[in-house]
């Protein structure tokens, strides 16, 4: 095997230093593309995060922003201009298609953003030109990107946007090579730009066997290695990522030694892994929130007593215990506890007597009919929607509420929920970048005209909440922002806008002979700095 990898490294024109071992990883899906700009998929980010770097990154296993291709940055007093000082001496990868003649500089940053922002850019429409994450998170807020000098770039915003650096750490805003793009354009093959990646990261693509295996080789001249940053240095001979869609099969592959790291096993397989002498179950915090929403377009849910009754009738402790297989924790806060800005709120107290009384006061002493929606797919915030819905249904039956469980295939579910069809909706979200504002903003705010934000499926529009969220989004002082988010969550909690399901930890299966692997809370779990004994 070593011989094969070494031969591959020579073919790719790499001088491989003394690395040891091959890191095999079982991934849950295939990368959709090899240009991060074109995707919003987490699995794709896991692969591309090893190849490309962004201007900033999320700290390993944490939620703070740290420098990457930008060495430092400053924010203007009005909060509208972010000036990034770029790292010098960063080399681009050499591949079969491309031999770089220069190092990374501001032209690459300009190219990366021009491609997405400028409709007339020769690369704008290449391979469909859908920049889904940029389009949804930054396009509306960005005024311009300007090159100040070869190693300084300024991002100007239309209005202050506190989560800006967090958004810049997102996996889809990684920097691509302008020189490589020019060469491919001149050769008349720009479409290859998104298929044959050239990055600055610790690993580079050796081969992708469609839907089967991604093979990465170490990029010895990566800036992390050259500048002595261990966590950005490749320390294995190769990474082989095997695509295995089924969670039970990924566990079996880990048990058989075929994969040293397996992503996202079934929660129910935990005992099997714990019994194994060769494997560890590594627990990763998940930055996601799952909840039930009440449809504020419907009269019955506009009465706070109905919402209170339904919330206090749910026995959340056993529900979370069962649904998250013992890996969950009960909370009443929208922002997950792992995050700065999370409020210390308990779940609504389980009190069926009080619930019955509230329901009677609201005029439903003879019972209430509701539709309860259940997410049809396993999500990090809700591994088993059906089970959760059944448990809620049973709890509600005790206070005379007859809940009909409704579910649709995932695409249809999202579409109908967004059209406010869900009476009591089950929904949730995963944080894409380390800023607590994302889920409260996307799922619980409305615009000035009173139109709910796209994921606000319950159409809850609360002026105080919106005002506080807006205020927190316009300042950069993290402590002050955290305080405001705690206040906002309290408003949501007191108004019974939704019922939080609590949060869960996610698991990874890691072989005992793998050292230095830290699962990411946001975005990509890095394979640099990881060793295999």
């Amino acid at each position, binding site marked *: *095997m070593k011989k*094969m990898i070494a031969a*591959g490294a020579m073919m790719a024109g790499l001088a491989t230093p003394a690395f040891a071992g*091959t890191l*095999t990883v079982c991934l849950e*899906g295939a990368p*959709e*593309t090899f240009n991060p700009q074109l*995707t*919003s998929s987490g699995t794709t980010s896991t692969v591309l995060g090893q190849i490309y770097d962004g201007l900033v990154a999320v700290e390993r296993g944490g939620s703070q922003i740290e420098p990457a291709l930008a060495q430092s940055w400053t924010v203007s007093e009005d909060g509208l201009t972010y000036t990034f000082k770029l790292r010098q001496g960063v080399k681009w990868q050499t591949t079969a298609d491309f031999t770089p003649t220069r190092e990374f500089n501001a032209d690459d940053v300009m190219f990366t953003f021009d491609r997405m922002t400028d409709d007339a850019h020769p690369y704008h429409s290449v*391979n*469909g*030109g*859908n920049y*889904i994450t940029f*389009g*949804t998170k930054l*396009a509306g807020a960005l005024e311009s990107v300007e090159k100040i000098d070869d190693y300084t770039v300024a991002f100007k915003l239309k209005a202050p946007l506190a989560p800006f650096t967090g958004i810049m750490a997102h996996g889809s805003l990684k920097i691509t090579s302008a020189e490589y793009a020019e060469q491919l354009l001149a050769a008349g093959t720009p*479409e290859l730009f*998104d*298929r044959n990646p050239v990055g600055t990261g610790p690993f580079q693509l*050796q*081969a992708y*066997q*469609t*839907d*089967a*295996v991604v*093979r990465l080789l170490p990029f010895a001249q990566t800036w992390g290695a050259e500048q002595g940053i261990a966590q950005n240095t490749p320390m294995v001979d190769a990474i*082989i990522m*095997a*695509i*295995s*869609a*089924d969670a*039970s*099969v990924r566990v*079996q*592959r880990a*048990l*058989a030694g*075929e994969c040293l790291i397996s992503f996202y096993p079934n929660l129910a397989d935990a005992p099997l892994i714990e019994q194994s002498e060769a494997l560890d179950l590594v627990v990763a915090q998940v930055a996601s929130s799952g909840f039930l929403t009440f449809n504020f377009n419907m009269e019955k849910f506009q009465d706070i007593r109905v919402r209170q009754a339904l919330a206090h009738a749910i026995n959340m402790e056993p529900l979370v215990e069962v649904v998250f297989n013992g890996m969950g924790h009960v909370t009443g806060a929208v922002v997950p506890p792992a995050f700065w800005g999370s409020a210390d709120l308990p779940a609504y107290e389980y009190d069926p007597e009080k619930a019955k009384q509230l329901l009677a006061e609201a005029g439903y002493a003879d019972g209430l009919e509701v539709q309860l929606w259940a997410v049809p797919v396993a*999500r990090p915030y809700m591994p088993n929607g059906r089970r959760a819905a059944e448990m809620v249904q049973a709890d509600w039956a005790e206070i005379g509420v007859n809940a009909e469980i409704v579910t*649709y*295939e*995932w*695409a*249809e579910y*999202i*579409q109908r929920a*967004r059209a406010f069809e869900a009476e009591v909706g089950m*929904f*949730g*979200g995963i944080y894409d970048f380390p800023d607590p504002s994302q889920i409260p903003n*996307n*799922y619980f705010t409305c615009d000035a005209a009173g139109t709910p*934000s*796209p*994921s*606000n499926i319950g159409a809850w529009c609360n002026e105080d909440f919106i005002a506080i969220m807006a205020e927190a989004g316009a300042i950069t002082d993290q402590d002050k922002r955290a305080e405001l988010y705690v206040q906002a969550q309290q408003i949501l909690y007191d108004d019974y806008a939704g019922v939080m399901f609590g949060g869960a930890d996610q698991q990874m299966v890691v072989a005992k002979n793998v050292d230095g692997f830290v699962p990411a809370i946001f975005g990509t779990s890095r394979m640099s700095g990881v060793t295999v004994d």
Partner: protein
Amino acid sequence: MIRFLLRKLLVIVPTFIGISIVAFGFVRILPGDPVMLMAGERGLTAERHAELLAQFGFDRPIWVQYLDFVARIFQGDIGSSLVTKKPVLQEFAVLFPATLELALCAILLAALIGIPLGVLAAAKRGSWFDQLSMGVALTGYSMPIFWWGLLLIIFFSGTLGWTPVSGRISLMYYFPDSTGFMLIDSLLSGQKGAFASALHHLILPSIVLATIPMAVLARQTRSAMLEVLSEDYVRTARAKGLNPWRVVSLHAFRNALIPIVTTLGLQIGGLLTGAILTETIFSWPGIGKWMVDSISRRDYPVVQGGLMMIAIIVMAVNLIVDMLYALINPRIRHR
């Protein structure tokens, strides 16, 4: 024979038109759209959503999109994936050999076991062998594939360690694709142990995929044989004192072949499209899993183009089966 072939080819034209409408329309009837799924729970403003749909050209009237689809088929272009941005034909060409390799191994296994089992069961009608083998066949036919596959993995790969868990070859082997057929490519690579590894990886998925066709073939063979064995000429042959096995294998079996070949042909069509669960369990990079993933992502060009390709292949298999009938039974080609 040529007239027979022409007649068959003529039927293909309306079939093709029908399939193009179904392939185009089926995925478009489903609620949800690719942009919405790419955004997931995160949400997208209505304006942004409309803008992205327009970029894909999905804002045009549906019939314009259909005509565009058909026109491009005639130019040999069935579109590019919305997700991977690669031409559908290129993705199909990469993934199809994996499906075909698995399907051929499975059908071979199914035929080699299922047909003799059916013949023997018919010859020994009512015996314990007949009852046992048909009982096993019925169990195989009703087996939930996902459960069966996992069971085999847990037992043979997990407990006994005899077979690999999944994949087409050990991750430690790497060589570029030449034909896309792992058994051939591993031989061509010249790497020691590669062929054995590829063969080893085929065992469990072939068994799982062959289970249902094997059961169907065994039962079909048995009933076809029973019918033929009750014919007068078989009785005559027996009365003449011919070796009973010669009667079964030569006189009866050859005449029972038509329904068996029909079943075999239908099973091949089914295997090409029905390997979805097997491909998912065994991380087998074929077209079944590719199509299902594309449906759930509403990757319209892949679903539409993929369906067209599969339909064309199934039509070709059916044509070959029809021609085989004509070879087996000359009366058919003169009908």
